[in-house]
């Protein structure tokens, strides 16, 4: 999976902000504690029409999620 690494300032500014009627920005920490923006194809189309289109210019990087311990095992 690929996504865009963003700054903590971007996270503080945009976390939880809706960019269309149904969808809001949600930034996720990767295994190296970088904040990622992971977008679907529809997200990219919608964001391109907004003031947040600049986010699409951020190059893609590999996203590896943080491991989660099994709830039992």
């Amino acid at each position, binding site marked *: *999976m690929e996504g865009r690494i963003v700054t903590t300032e971007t996270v503080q500014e945009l976390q939880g902000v809706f960019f269309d009627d149904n*969808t*809001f920005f949600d930034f996720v920490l990767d295994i190296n504690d970088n904040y990622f*923006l992971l*977008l*679907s194809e529809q997200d990219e189309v919608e964001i391109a029409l907004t003031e947040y289109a600049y986010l699409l210019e951020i190059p893609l990087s590999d996203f590896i999620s943080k491991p989660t311990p099994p*709830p039992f095992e």
Partner: protein
Amino acid sequence: MIINPYLFGPVFDPDAQAFITAAAIVNPTEQTAINTLVIDLKGYNIWNKTLVIYPFVGGTALSNSKNLKNISLGTLSYTTGVNHGTLGIQGNTVSYADTGLKSTTIGFTQNNAASGIYLQSWTLGQTMPYGHFGNLTMYRTGNVVYPMINNALNTSTGVPILNGLLQTSRDNALNFIFKDKNNAPVTLTSGSSALNSTLNLYVCFGNNYNGVNDWISFNYYALALTATELTNMNTAVQTFQTTLGRQV
């Protein structure tokens, strides 16, 4: 008076029509599928027990966001990363749809509850495709699924991993019923636990744990359903999916 449907369009069940309008469903096949689903659920006397139904039809963020049972309740919002398509909605293990509802606000009680999820596949282990971690979801590890309907994870309740409609129902404090798409309902022993008043119910992701990256084509919550009602629900939902050409 005879109404010509070619002039005025088909007449749908009022609840189906309300959803079709709110979700902006314009495809005739999708409209018919929704209408048949509502009529089937009413015919089986299940409709009045359902609380929230997400049929994930229409292929858009708007159409996928609407609750068939009550278009004014539980409208989904999405994090970035959720796909919308003919198969429904798809997360990426960390993205999700938020119902805005909690176990304590959805309308069921600790010992009177049911839920179901229709998965096109279930690819990854250590994942939960809906609900919330703790006691209202299903957890896959290896090739086994552990269902939770107001009960904590319990190693004695494992069932084989499957796709299609997976359902749980509880009408008492001691055990619950699990139903998959193929087999007769089975009773699993696991004592109930208190409803969670903190975590919202998600789709694609068990809130506070891990999500799936598979397409999800249906999700519902209801009051407790009997074994027969679970079987009838499976029939109605499978008919719905077949009409849409996405049955598994």
